[in-house]
């Protein structure tokens, strides 16, 4: 069995205890809710997207250290990414959770969650905020497209 040290690293618990991006945005472009029906974890995420770039991310929710730390790491690293880069980052995080070899550049602190892949029961905890982000980005794209059609 993999050691607990793989799961509960100092950096992860630092994000859990001092969460980055927790709260709300004034005028979010997209909002999304996700839950994990297996355990009851919930997350609400808000995104400010300007000129095709993620300007700010905020989140609130309930969950374990892995779930909350993962959201904190995501919220810290995502601002500044273009929407395409954000999609790419979510995809690479998902690959990492499934134990695939990835180019770890640009995942920021979230790379510390690599060890979660060794704990299948916890992968969903780590993925919750990233799944929510993916949904938010898709919503943003679809909204942008339909607004575009209107012009």
């Amino acid at each position, binding site marked *: 069995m993999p050691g607990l040290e793989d799961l509960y690293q*100092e950096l992860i*618990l630092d994000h859990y205890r001092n969460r980055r991006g927790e709260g709300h945005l004034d005028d979010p472009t997209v909002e999304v809710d996700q839950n994990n029906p*297996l*355990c009851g*974890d919930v997350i609400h995420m808000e995104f400010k997207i300007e000129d095709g770039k993620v300007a700010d991310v905020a989140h609130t929710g*309930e*969950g374990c250290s892995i779930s909350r730390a993962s959201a904190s790491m995501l919220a810290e690293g995502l601002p500044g990414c273009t929407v395409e880069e954000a999609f790419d980052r979510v995809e690479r995080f998902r690959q990492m959770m499934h134990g695939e070899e990835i180019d770890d550049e640009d995942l920021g602190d979230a790379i510390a969650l690599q060890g979660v892949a060794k704990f299948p029961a*916890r992968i969903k905890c780590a993925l919750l905020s990233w799944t929510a982000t993916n949904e938010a980005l898709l919503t943003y794209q679809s909204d942008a497209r339909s607004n575009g059609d209107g012009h």
Partner: protein
Amino acid sequence: MALTTLDPEALRADFPLLADDGPGVVYLDSAATSQKPASVLAAMDAYYRETNANVHRGVYGLAVDATDRFEAGRDAVAGLVGVDREQVVFTKNASEALNLVAWAWGVRNLGPDDEILVTAMEHHSNIVPWHIVAGITGATVRLIPVTPGGELDLDAFTGLLGPQTKVLAAAHVSNVLGTINPVAELAAAAHGVGALVVADGAQSVPHMPVDFAELGADALAFTGHKMLGPTGIGVLVARRELLESMEPFLGGGEMISQVTADGATWNDIPWKFEAGTPPIAEAVGLGAAIRYLTDIGLTEVRAHEIELTATLLDALREIPGLTVYGPTDPARRGGAVSFALDGIHPHDLAQLIDRDGVCVRAGHHCAQPLMEELGTPATTRASLYLYNSESDVEALVRSIHRAREFFDDV
């Protein structure tokens, strides 16, 4: 001073997974599923090796033997809860037993003016089928709230009860709080307004003597795998008149009397509700599980669990920052104990104590309306059975302290 003669340490030798040469776990998740004694595994193995054939069909000797062993499982269930064998319907699990009543009775008898009262401490299996019935019939589901002490709010129940109440769905014992609900009292009141009473016995029948008539419900659901038996078999016990009056839930082989091009007539109860080849080996295993339990005696099992629950509650209360949910009097509750530990989420705690081989459940326990009432999305739950001992409680407490040290040190 021990009040019971039950020796859990000795019983463990009967359970391959808990025996000295097993994987060495401290198993505290019997509310989710119980471990199985070797006698249950042997009975199922012997069935397949010696008498495997389909039941109620063949005229050859092997098929007759298979039918005898299968129906002996039904007799064991009937004896356990004090009913006639015709009142025992085999299903896939307790959820299917509850769905059977919801579909066969609820969908056909409820309408837009009717209400279904469901306790706020129900497992999803005794809530969601009623939501489905409400969606089809226009009836309304109302929750009976829980007091801060984790008991059913009887005043609120009385206030909700009325001529519009057509169903009362109540757990005998809560899978989260351990609370024993006064089903007989609730049933008497519900019958006073003409409601059908559907009890979930998944957490009571395995742990204490339950007599169907004394319980007072019209229907009672429970499951084999929580009472030392295999997965894949559940039980619906119901009043004979209810079973006779209900239309079938599932159609297929076995449940018919005669089929023509235009329709069919139904088999007698209980087979009217058992479409298709039933869980034969599972019924044999459940029969063996009931023999194991009744050889020890459910009064003994209950006495042991009261003693050990008292020990568990006392030990947990001494842990700084730990809050226990549910009734504090062990005589008023079962052995499922939910708790919260300040600063460590239940998932993290369950993960941390897994390293010591301690198996507990963390999450919403399929009881999200109750979690809402408790104001928490999740709890950690340790649940006891006849094979648990004080050493398991000590191991749990030791491990919780170790988890706290580890988590605080990172």
